């Protein structure tokens, strides 16, 4: 399809360009506003960055921004590891074995994908209290151990991405099943793993309701909780507020931009066919 001078295509390019600018503009705004002194912020449209950035950063750092970062990184990393371990297991079983109950397991995964997590939150929190996990990060992590979407994704990926003959010959060579999973299946689906890891990282990083209910010590706040409390922390210092917001969101964006090639390749590898 090479008709690059087609007027429709030019129009599509322009439209996409405009939409992309709209997508990125708010980020530019918060960054730009974060460089202003609050008093100057009210005088006009803060489109060009000003010179108060360092001061604002100092204010932001004094409110445990780094601590929240560390907390969020720790939780998201643990969530990714937990979710991937269980979903690779069941994904392998569903993709490459025939066994009694397979249909049932598959249906459970599909139903699980339709269960909204927020709905079970009351029962879940009381369960956590019974298990004496209230106020610990475990109460956030338990929701990630069984992540149906991830299980489904892994099953799809392994079904198409791993040739069954390879598994057969490994079995004949006497490789154990866990050995096959780790040494043959996982290396075959690295893009899928990377994509799923990114998604779980994002979902866990951004989740708000559960931490809001489960975490009550400011020292344990995750990034969304910290951001939500910014307004209270600097009720009048909008410059510092915007600067913290920029610091809380931008590093993740930059990380994503660096890894986007792998992430998009994983999605495109044909795993999501719903």
């Amino acid at each position: 399809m090479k008709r690059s001078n087609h007027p429709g295509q030019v129009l599509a390019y322009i439209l996409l360009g405009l939409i992309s600018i709209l997508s990125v503009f708010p980020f530019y705004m918060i960054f730009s506003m974060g460089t202003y002194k609050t008093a100057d912020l009210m005088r006009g449209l803060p489109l060009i960055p000003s010179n108060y950035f360092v001061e604002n950063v100092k204010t932001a750092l004094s409110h445990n921004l780094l601590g929240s970062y560390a907390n969020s990184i720790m939780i998201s990393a643990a969530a990714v590891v937990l979710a991937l371990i269980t979903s690779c297991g069941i994904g392998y079983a569903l993709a490459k074995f025939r066994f009694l109950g397979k249909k049932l397991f598959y249906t459970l995964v599909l139903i699980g994908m339709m269960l909204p997590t927020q709905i079970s939150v009351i029962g879940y929190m009381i369960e956590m209290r019974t298990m004496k996990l209230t106020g610990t990060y475990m109460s956030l992590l338990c929701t990630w151990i069984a992540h149906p979407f991830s299980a489904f994704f892994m099953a799809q990926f392994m079904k198409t991405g791993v040739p069954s003959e390879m598994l057969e010959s490994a079995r004949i060579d006497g490789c154990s099943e866990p050995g096959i999973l780790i040494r043959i299946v996982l290396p075959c689906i690295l893009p899928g793993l990377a994509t799923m890891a990114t998604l779980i990282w994002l979902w866990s990083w951004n989740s708000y309701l559960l931490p809001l209910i489960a975490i009550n010590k400011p020292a344990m706040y995750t990034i969304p909780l910290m951001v939500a409390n910014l307004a209270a922390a600097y009720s009048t210092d909008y410059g510092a507020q915007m600067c913290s917001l920029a610091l809380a969101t931008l590093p993740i964006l930059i990380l994503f931009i660096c890894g986007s090639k792998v992430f998009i390749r994983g999605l495109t590898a044909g795993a999501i066919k719903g």
Partner: protein
Amino acid sequence: MVSYAIGKKRTLRKVNPWPYIFSAPFLIAFFMFSVYPILFSFQLSAYNWNGISPVRKYVGLKNYIRLFTGDTLFMKALGNSALFVVIIVPLQLVAGVVMAYALFRFEKGRRLFQTMNFLPYITTPVAIGVIFAYMFDWNSGIVNGVLTHLGILKENYAWLHEVWSARMIVILMCLWRCAGYYMTIYLSAMLAVPQEQCEAAEIDGANSRQVFFRIILPSVRNTTVFLMITGLIGCFQLFDEPVQLYSGWSAGVSNVGGPSYSVYTVIWKFYTDAYKANNAIGYASAEAMILFVLIAILSLISFFVSNRKGDEDA
């Protein structure tokens, strides 16, 4: 677990334990942390309980009856959520599929567009609420600033204080956040469609609109179903963005639910009842159950309606 090997003669054979061992961790955690809490919530919905006191009072269906007959705010929240679902989900799907198709047709710059448009999806929804609250602020917001500057508005408009403009902002936030995600998923599905199919159609004289409606759209049907169901669920769970819209920057209207509760969603009401205002754990559980049933019915309908030809061979 005793099983027959699936063979032509159904010979009794030693059962391979590995698939069960591999599935076990997931299934155990699934039952512990997803299924059990829902059943537990269901049980609690038949009680009057504040979550702390040792006494739970059994009230049967009274919580449900009160929700449907005595709680106008719940009905309002339910209506708001339904409204958001009805407006937002189709908008997201259309925006996603159209943008994806536009990108599908050229390779140059594809990744740049994809990455740029995915950025909102990465951003914490809480932060999006704060950003939009600022942008639509009555006094210092950039939207009013630009519109009055250009002479479109004569004086600043109180976007966040009017029922429909508040709803519009919530819709805009969801669209802004998710369009790029929908686009990315759609695009990956479109790239899996065999190129020859499109090229053959074009040689036969089909224009790009016909290719889109006759070939691309039917081929990505499964993706549409997937995105519709997840979008439906996500939209019914709307909470972070509207809450932040009314608690951050524009502290002047810091209230629950926005102007006359116009953006009060079911989850917001649920959170207020369970953890904020009155610790009505039993009552809030009933609210969650209603939402659960609603989502289950809608997901199942969309699943079966569009999956009649069932092509997964699991």
